[in-house]
């Protein structure tokens, strides 16, 4: 590539980054503050940012999981829930809460709101940006808190951390499950696909585009290129000027997307255990499809809806039962990448 076109491309991305940030700024009017407890934060606190919509029954386990890892403060945007999500969150001592009635879809799936909160609160902090059904797993997470990881990343001059979105599923059909608030979702969602992920490089943003897993296998077997992306960058040391482009798949400036090594070695990376397939999925698929607030018009939810109700079983003879991070590392779904 010539120098000129290289320059043009990076200028284009710079403009795009600015546009995203302005857009986030514009969208801040859609978001109103409910409760801000973030003033007591300390310089090296670890933050978590998330957008929620009617997730009341999932929240208590979610909060406990991340508190246990060492998240110091939570920033939530409640997108117009009516199941008590807002009230529950507002009562938590380590949560700051915003409320938005705006359209999830037109706010770039909540990313505009999150970008704005990050801009205002996250500078120079390590931040996890995850959905309520995503559980972060990293090397040594059973013995070392998040702070050990972020300290090591700081010492290694690494500012972003990649994770594969790993869909967890039950052994029986998706409809036969029960889930009670506070319960670990991994009591029911015990299995995963260990080796059917494909990747390609997105030249424009320099990130990997990873697809595969049970969702591609079952719901997108005929049009696999439309299967959801599983590459995520959930942990970022936030700097002024950073911005998420599409969900947590892509960041700008694009150097942050290079969570992989391209000359043979492995960079440290983790997994996000995805608990989408909890029993409420069947109801949720109907609800979300009517709401049409998701990526590509809720195509994913439509696919689930079509398959659900027929006794969908994702489990198969080669499914692996989840045993812990070391198993995922051995299987090659994540990597120690030099962290002994």
């Amino acid at each position, binding site marked *: 590539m010539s120098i000129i076109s290289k320059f043009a491309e990076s200028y284009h991305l710079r403009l795009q980054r600015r546009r995203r940030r302005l857009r986030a700024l514009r969208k801040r009017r859609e978001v109103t503050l409910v409760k801000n407890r973030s003033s007591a934060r300390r310089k090296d606190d670890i933050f978590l940012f998330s957008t929620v919509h009617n997730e009341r029954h999932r929240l208590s386990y979610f909060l406990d999981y991340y508190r246990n890892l060492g998240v110091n403060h939570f920033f939530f945007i409640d997108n117009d829930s009516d199941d008590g999500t807002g009230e529950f969150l507002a009562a938590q001592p380590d949560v700051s809460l915003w409320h938005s009635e705006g359209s999830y879809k037109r706010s770039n799936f909540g990313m505009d709101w999150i970008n704005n909160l990050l801009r205002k609160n996250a500078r120079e902090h390590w931040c996890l940006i995850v959905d309520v059904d995503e559980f972060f797993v990293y090397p040594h997470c059973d013995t070392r808190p998040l702070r*050990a990881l972020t*300290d090591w990343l700081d010492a290694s001059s690494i500012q972003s951390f990649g994770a594969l979105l790993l869909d967890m599923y039950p052994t029986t059909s998706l409809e036969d499950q029960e889930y009670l608030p506070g319960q670990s979702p991994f009591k029911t969602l015990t299995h995963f696909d*260990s080796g059917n992920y494909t990747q390609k490089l997105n030249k424009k943003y320099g990130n990997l585009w990873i697809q595969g897993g049970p969702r591609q296998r079952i719901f997108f*077997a005929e049009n696999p290129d439309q299967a959801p992306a599983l590459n995520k960058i959930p942990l970022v040391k936030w700097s002024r000027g950073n911005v998420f482009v599409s969900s947590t798949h892509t960041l700008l400036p694009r150097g942050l997307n290079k969570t992989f*090594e391209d000359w043979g070695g*492995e960079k440290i990376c983790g997994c996000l255990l995805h608990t989408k397939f909890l029993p409420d999925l069947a109801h949720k698929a109907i609800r979300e499809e009517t709401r049409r607030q998701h990526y590509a018009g809720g195509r994913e939810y439509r696919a689930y809806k079509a398959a659900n109700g027929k006794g969908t079983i994702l489990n198969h003879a080669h499914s692996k039962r989840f045993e812990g991070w070391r198993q995922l590392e051995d299987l090659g779904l*994540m*990597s120690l990448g*030099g962290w002994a």
Partner: protein
Amino acid sequence: MIPAIAILAHHNLDRVAQVVRFLSDAGLYVCIHVDQSVPADRFNKFKSSLSDHTDILWAKRVKCEWGHFSLVEATLNMSEEILAERPDAGHVMLLSGDSLPIRAPAEFISFLHKNPGVDFIESVVIGDDNWISGGLGIERFTLSFPFSWKKQRRFFDIWVEVQRKLRLNRRIPNGVRPHIGSQWWCLSRKTLEAIINDPAKAQYDAYFRKCWIPDESYFQTLARNHASTIESRSLLFSRFDHQGKPTTFYDDHVEFLDKIDAFFARKIWARASTLYERFLSPLPTKARTAPNLERIETAAHRRKTGRGGLYMHGRAPNQWLEEYSPTALPYHVFTGFNAVFSEFDDWQGTHSGIRPHGRLFAKSRVKFVNNGSIGAGGMSGSAAIRDLAPENFLCNLVWNTREQGLRFHYEISDLPKIGKFLLADPHANLHFIRHGWMLDLLNRGIENNEYLRTTATTMINRERMVLTDLEQSKTNCNYNIWTLGEVLSNPQTALKATLGEANVQMPIILPEMTDASRLTDFARELKNIGVDINSTLLESAAANVQTKNGFKAQK
């Protein structure tokens, strides 16, 4: 004689205070140097927290910068302080603020008591060692480094390049024979005094001031001029990764550190409270066994070379840079065998221990072993998913079967794209029967001459294409090509070869062969309807087997 501990402290002063208190209570002399960059209030707080330990020595503070002479200066300040104030200090052990004693201090004291006058300093000649991980070698001594590596990296790198290009080398002064080693030494009083009182010290200091990372070479070099007995090892255990970053120890390293044959270790994570609690309390004397470095080495290996043939969020090797092969392990591919041997898969299963998959790259769907709809690792049987990235599909399957090995059928009418990939992959072992498809066609008993002609011609053309590709320079695979005639007359040799390196010794029971009695007639019929059959391929001459890096069985 009482050993003295010199501590270079920068951060986490609470932890440093804990270590100092412990060592001082154990009867060791302690001298502390606190980085001048630590703000006055934090320094004063730290100092007053240790005010009950009046015998602690405080060295003159300098502003420390990693990689520069200031660290040597700080160390010299501490050494001078100790030599002047503690006339009965026999040894000085240098530690960092993030070190911990991992054996009882009494053991350390008695060890040095038994080794009076011995200098424990890692000191090796530069060049013939693997000591430096990820950094400059002899150039540390011959170039100059006016820029900060941490804050002015770009200028640092440019200036190094400029000096290399212009061959700007500094002269190494007489009396300096460059040696290098761990910063954390334990020197005897005699040697330390000799270094400090050397008449040429001012000249040496001026020289080392411009060297890179002199804390790993100043004492290591000068000790060689004065010491009587050097034991070239450090009494402090530390490890560097390939980027020159020290390995950090956490609570889960307790057992590991327990086994280390050294008196101290670094670097300890400041929040590893289990480590601090355990090692800053009375320890039993315990026999040391060899520590298991496997965990550390695995992590280093992951970062450096990674697992070949694995593609994931942290590893996406550039096609041209993948060192050897895009796949993880060797695998075997069979073409034409199913047509010749009716129970080939069973036979393979018993003789090689691996039952081969069917035609993984058949156009209609993926044919996994035993007609399974899902393969190892959750690979989908959908042709659409496979065809989205067939190379990825194969790499994944090789990775997923890395414990047992992969064998599969690939017929010439299958996905052509993957054919090229197989030819280029050094891990592929191709076993190819030319015109094997004829038997298949014969036994299908096709009446329609038009269909027969088209199919046969297509097969001949595809076969020719594969063979032409094979002669290209990009071919890296191992292959054996047999003609149908050879295999029919001498099946043993071809079959033996399909087993690869494994199991060549065991007696080979031949599998049942497809009925080929009508083959010559069939060839004539094909010729009569206009198909260009090369009859020599059906003859039994066994002289012209094509192989590349052929298997032992054939030699």
